[in-house]
């Protein structure tokens, strides 16, 4: 069979495929998990992913942006699956879940440091399960032994820390994947605009002030995914920067490039210096030179 490239979609998923006579590559985007942030589109090496704002309907909340994948450009490297903090993307080769960039250590995996000490949980507490904005936590207790188990779908957890803060016993410890800074300059915000708040997947990160009716940030919960940045209609009203990304160690130009796009050139060089990668730095510098010119 000649090679076939195809794209199919439904409300719940978007699938692009490259089908060879005896091999099949597939990328699936789970639309129920996708929050429409910018991370994957920022770093796709083939620029195959695009994010688009949804047209706003009168009287309705702003909808989160929509991700589209170009079936001709995608080459199934799996970089997007590695970066997605919400676990919305998957690449399979012949049906097996494989991100070849991770297998070959060309790209790191995000580290979600989540520790839960369920031994001390009171049997009737389900605070964490209730607070999780993404419904990722399931608390069960064995009525016989009174043993509590907490299951968290970690691969879909963006580490917002809401459960950690909420836990009355202080039994959850979370280290964020991304750190950074989110600033809103309320004086630039158009009146009555709350687009960012509408699309933020993590409740209470952004809130409406009763004083002036403008949106403010509570950075403690922010995952720095950037969905808000895409919908913000005003150029200088919202500023988002990431400074560190918690990830498994790799030595890879592709990661350096991604890091630069996700954070900034300075942050990237900081990470490289930390690793003492002289040669890589030289290579990066050389690559940047023509752009600087």
């Amino acid at each position, binding site marked *: *069979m000649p*090679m076939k490239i195809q794209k199919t979609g439904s409300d719940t998923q978007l699938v692009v495929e490259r089908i060879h006579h*005896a091999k099949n590559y597939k990328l699936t985007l789970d639309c129920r998990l996708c929050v429409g942030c910018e991370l994957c589109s920022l770093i796709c090496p083939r620029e195959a992913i695009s994010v688009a704002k949804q047209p706003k309907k009168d009287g309705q909340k702003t909808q989160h942006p929509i991700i589209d994948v170009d079936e001709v450009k995608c080459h199934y490297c799996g970089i997007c699956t590695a970066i997605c903090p919400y676990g919305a993307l998957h690449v399979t080769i012949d049906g097996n879940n494989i991100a070849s*960039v991770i297998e*070959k250590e060309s790209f790191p995996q995000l580290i979600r440091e989540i520790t839960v000490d369920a031994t001390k949980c009171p049997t009737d507490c389900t605070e964490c399960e209730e607070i999780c904005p993404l419904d990722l936590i399931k608390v069960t207790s064995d009525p016989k032994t009174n043993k509590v188990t907490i299951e968290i779908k970690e691969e879909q957890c963006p580490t917002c820390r809401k459960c950690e803060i909420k836990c009355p016993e202080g039994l959850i410890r979370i280290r964020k994947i991304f750190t950074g800074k989110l600033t809103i300059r309320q004086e630039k915000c158009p009146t009555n605009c709350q687009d960012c708040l509408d699309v933020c997947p993590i409740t209470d990160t952004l809130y409406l002030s009763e004083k002036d009716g403008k949106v403010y940030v509570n950075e403690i919960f922010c995952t720095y995914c950037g969905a808000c940045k895409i919908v913000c209609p005003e150029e200088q009203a919202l500023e988002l920067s990431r400074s560190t990304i918690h990830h498994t160690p790799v030595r890879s130009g592709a990661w350096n490039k991604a890091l630069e796009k996700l954070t900034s050139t300075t942050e990237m060089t900081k990470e490289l210096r930390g690793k003492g990668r002289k040669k890589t730095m030289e290579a990066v510098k050389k690559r940047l030179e023509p752009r600087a010119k």
Partner: protein
Amino acid sequence: MVDEQPRVGVFVCHCGLNIAGVIDVKAVIEYARTLPDVVFTKDNRYTCADPGQDEIRKAIKEHRLNRVVVAACSPRMHEPTFRKTCAEADLNPFFFEMANIREFSSWCHPNTPKEATEKAKEIVRMAVAKARLLQPLKEIEVPVTNKALVIGGGIAGINSALDLAEMGFRVYLLEKTESIGGHMAQLDKTFPTLDCSICIEGPKMVDVGRHPNIDIISYADLVSVSGYVGNFKVKIRKNPRYVIHEDCTGCGECKEVCPIEYPNEWDMNMGVRKAISIPFEQAVPLVYTLNMDHCIECYKCIDACGARQAINFDQEPEEIELDVGAIIVATGFDIYLPYDDPLYGYGKYDNVITALEFERLILAAGPTGGKVIRASDGEKPHTVAFIQCVGSRNLKKFEYCSGFCCMYALKNAILLKEKYKRDVEVYVLYMDMRTPFKGYEEFYKRARDLGVTFIRGRASHIIEDPDKNNLVIRAEDMTLGQPIELPAEMVVLCTAAVPRSDAGEMARILNISRGTDGFFMESHPKLKPIDTPVDGVFVAGSCQAPKDIPYSVSQGSGAAARAATILSKKKWKIEPIVAEVNADLCKNTQAKCGICAQRCPYGSIEALEKQPAKVITAMCHGCGTCVAECPSDAITQNHFTDEQIFAQIASALEENPEGKILGFLCNWCCYAGADLAGTSRFEYPPLIRPVRVMCSGRVDKDFVLEAFRKGAGMVLIGACHLPYDCHYISGNARMKARMDVLAPMLEKLGLSPQRFKVEYVSAAEGLKFAELMKEMAAQLQELGPDKVKAENAKLKPILDRMLAKKTQKKPPQIIQKA
């Protein structure tokens, strides 16, 4: 040196019955005797045969002939032969002229012998008129670079390169892709012996790679070619592999760490390869290539390569220039993918594949490890049907037969039978089974003996059962004379071999022509099958027409031998029919002109300020464009001078001019097309009187004016197709620009527009030429002689004035003998 009056000898050939069967040769001889300066006439059964040539040599000596006219076949066929004959009798070969009365008369007017004879007489008269004004010319000698360029590293190019290298010549083998090998390296087994393809080609590829006289320049493109036989300058762009050739050991460690897989075109995209990889294991040269389109720049490969440091992300394209004496084109074919024909469901039904895809499936090193399985379910098919002539022998697609499909279908049918025995049923749906050549018919029998079922008929439709993805072929069984339905679990389409997608570009760069089928044209279909119209450029293998491996190999070796005839010489003679500037007439000395320098397609004229223009003879190709363009008539083209052509015009229009079409036909396309009309025996009305020019660019406005002044019924300029077919790059375009101005002017002066035509006819369009002749004859008849005469009478005084300068020029020259 003695000043001499022309003494013309006319030899009329019977060509067996080819000419004498239609034309009254005796009458032509009688008539020739009455022509001015003709002192000797003779007819021969075969003038080109030894006795015929002897007679010419003898007559030159005995009758002190200083001009020879042979009335026989096309000068494109035998002009060189008779020039040599003259030279052997110590007569300057450029004192020879040919009258083409076979292709232009006996063959195209078989049913009107009287008219054919009259036409032949007039063609002879035109030749004599030109011959009287011929001048002796000295052949020009140029030095030869004894290196060769072979373009295309398929099996044909490989053989050319190896043979030339073995003869001791330096060879550059230019290959577009990463590895040499061509289609043969994609095949599983080869007919009729079923040896493994890469096992027999691989060692040859290695020989090429190792040969001290061969430089493989792979992953590179031809940019331009200039110069001429013996002295070509070739520009090549080497594309960056991002791997340093000299440092890569071919270990493949980079490939192991690379995370990226992309479709392997070489595997017909049925398999994949890494972003840094080789297309197949036996690749030559064994150098990895990094595909920047897919690379994510993780630099894992750099780490893996380590101390060898063979990977360099900063590589840039590199342009190199080579000097070579001869060029062999062996760029092969492409395979037709029938996406555009809904009949077969290709690209729609998973279990319909092309034969080349099938080769990759059954090949042990292929993407399925040699298992013939269906794409829909990974299962082995129990019935496989081969459909022949997909695209080929189809008037709506490709008219020609692709030659090797019958044989490879037999091959694959046999392979299936031998591999899966009773487990598989094999059908071949064919129109005609073509198995000529050694061992091929026996191979056909072998397939039948193995139980392959052959059905004669053409498929009309394929449908798919969407559940099981099985197929049903609807066809007409010609033997039974009734429609049939043939169920099959896999269908293999034996699709046409088509010209390379970049063949047009290649033809343009090399200045060679292509036939209507798009494949490169040979100089002569029988006697010069490997030559092209460009001296020093040869073709080999499937780029000229589909050919199987043995044929391609023989042609590869043949082309090497042809190239060696040039490379082995220190000097090469080129025809002296070049342009010359008369410094006294050139106006560039007074005012800035330089039109000739601008218009010369080869940039071979230098017009420095305040100096007369100068032709760089070795670079001049002899198209004559500058001659026609020069506003001061300061340039002449040797052997095609204004006087000679005016004499031909006058002679052609001596009698009944209003009933005639005067044709200025370019040697390479329209004249050749007219020859083909003759060779193919297409009959048309005998009105045309041809004046052969090397290039339509030579056709001066004055020629057209003179023809009408002399009362011509119609004038035709026959050129090569625009934009790229011109043998001299752009002579046809120059002519067109010129005539686009002339035509409206003539019309304004009262000329019916249909009386002046510029037409583009290729060497392959014999039929088109014949149709054109019929159409023009009909138009001329419709106009009627009276109207033509009236128009001409009105035109004459104006044309007399316009041409006064030219027609009243110097009395006929007395020519010196060289």
